[in-house]
């Protein structure tokens, strides 16, 4: 019997896993943004002396994982599982990182929702008694995403104002059954929600309904209200998606105005950095959570946070075939 499940889509952890370590790495552009003082490491060059962008992304993810291990004095041998994913075809960055680390690996694809997808599954592995230490990590890189999903980097074009900027960044979290740090109390798994948006340059609008669906179900499943949280943080809806999510939540009767924010909005100064609607990518919610939120929780500035990473499950083929963009959002409730 599923004794830990509550309501429709939520799981409560009687033995909440602890986040004992976090590490974030971002690229130079993110390192000039409003959160620059929070990131653990800012790359001077987003190629990191590698020959290809893909190798650079993989190196960034590997460095984040290694540094998060170092922070809690663990070695790869201490870790039972690595749950990781990225935006690239066949999870190139995560797979090559896992090859070099030698930790048992589950590759996950949740588009930009991978941070909370990996956190959710990692928490279940620990609470279920299957593991003592699990790493949840993810990355994205502007240049690898751009060449896979859009145009060559040097191609001249004008992006529409609804477009977002893929974050070059990576975040790694070490979860443990024992230790000190914020705990994951609940997770709410998201459904795939599709409201028929077909514009691949407007992913905020495509993903916002999924985020709203997951947040609303989280409240009804747990009996919590927006007041319970100091911060409800969506992954990468951007300015437009944030506005839409707020409107839709208000329509459903949840007033989140004072506690709601979005990682994609926080990470860039959209006017001065020319990022249009804000940041996107797995690395967006990963680096903001590992950099900013985790540290603020450790300082007890934030006590209860609901992280809702959002993903647009589109591919280049689905876009070319005129399919609409399915969105997904997984919620993770973190408390200290």
């Amino acid at each position, binding site marked *: 019997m599923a004794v830990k499940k509550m309501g429709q889509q939520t799981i409560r952890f009687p033995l909440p896993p602890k986040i004992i370590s976090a590490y974030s790495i971002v690229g130079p552009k993110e390192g000039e943004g409003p959160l620059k003082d929070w990131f653990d490491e800012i790359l001077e060059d987003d190629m990191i002396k590698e*020959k290809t962008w893909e190798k650079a992304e993989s190196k960034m993810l590997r460095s984040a994982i290694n540094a998060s291990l170092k922070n809690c004095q663990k070695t790869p041998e201490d870790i039972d599982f690595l749950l990781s994913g990225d935006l690239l075809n066949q999870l190139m960055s995560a797979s090559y990182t896992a090859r070099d680390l030698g930790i048992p690996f589950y590759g996950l694809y949740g588009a930009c929702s991978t941070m909370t997808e990996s956190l959710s599954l990692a928490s279940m592995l620990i609470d279920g008694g299957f593991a003592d230490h699990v790493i949840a990590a993810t990355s994205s890189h502007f240049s690898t995403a751009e060449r896979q999903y859009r145009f*060559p980097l*040097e*191609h*001249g074009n004008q992006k529409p104002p609804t477009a977002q900027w893929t974050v070059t960044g990576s975040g790694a979290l070490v979860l443990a059954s024992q230790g000190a740090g914020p705990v994951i109390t609940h997770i709410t798994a998201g459904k795939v929600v599709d*409201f028929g948006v077909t514009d691949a340059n407007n992913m905020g609008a495509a993903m916002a309904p999924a985020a709203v669906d997951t947040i609303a179900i989280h409240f009804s499943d747990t009996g919590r209200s927006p007041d319970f949280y100091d911060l409800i943080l969506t992954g990468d809806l951007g300015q*437009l998606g944030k506005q839409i999510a707020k409107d839709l939540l208000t329509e459903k009767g949840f007033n989140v105005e004072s506690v709601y924010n979005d990682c994609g909005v926080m990470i860039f100064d959209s006017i001065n950095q020319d990022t249009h609607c804000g940041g996107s990518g797995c690395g967006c919610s990963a680096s903001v959570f590992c950099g900013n939120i985790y540290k603020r929780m450790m300082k007890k500035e934030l006590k209860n946070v609901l992280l809702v990473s959002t993903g647009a499950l589109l591919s280049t083929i689905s876009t070319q075939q005129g399919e609409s963009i399915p969105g997904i959002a997984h919620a993770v409730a973190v408390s200290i």
Partner: protein
Amino acid sequence: MSQKKNRMNQKYNYYVNNVAPKPKYISNCIKAFFTGGTVCIIGFILQKWIQSKGLDQKTASSIVIMILIFSAQFLTGLGVFDDIVKFAGAGLIVPITGFANSIVSPAMEYKKEGIVLGVGAKLFSLAGPVLVWGFSASVIIGIIYAIIT
């Protein structure tokens, strides 16, 4: 898809279109007009100058096209063409400069996948459709022209 879901989607998309920020059509058009015009003026001045050196008009305009293509390729190689286009928009994409950029940018990008399957296969990934449908249209128009005259 059920009708109800369809209606819901339509309603949502209508709402999204209303709240979404719109491109600045007027200022984009003005910028494109002046940058595109500047390219044409430069081309014209070059052509007249080359003609003044004793070449006929046809040869001179071919040389001008080569100079414009080279400039766009060179600026693409330096990594600044895309930054200029961000401002200029159609003013630089519509002239031959945009075409040059759409061939050089994949050549640079896909070099990492090798000379054959990278550069060779992807060189025309952006310009290819323009060529295919440009040639097709010219053939059809040519046939129509032959029939009429």
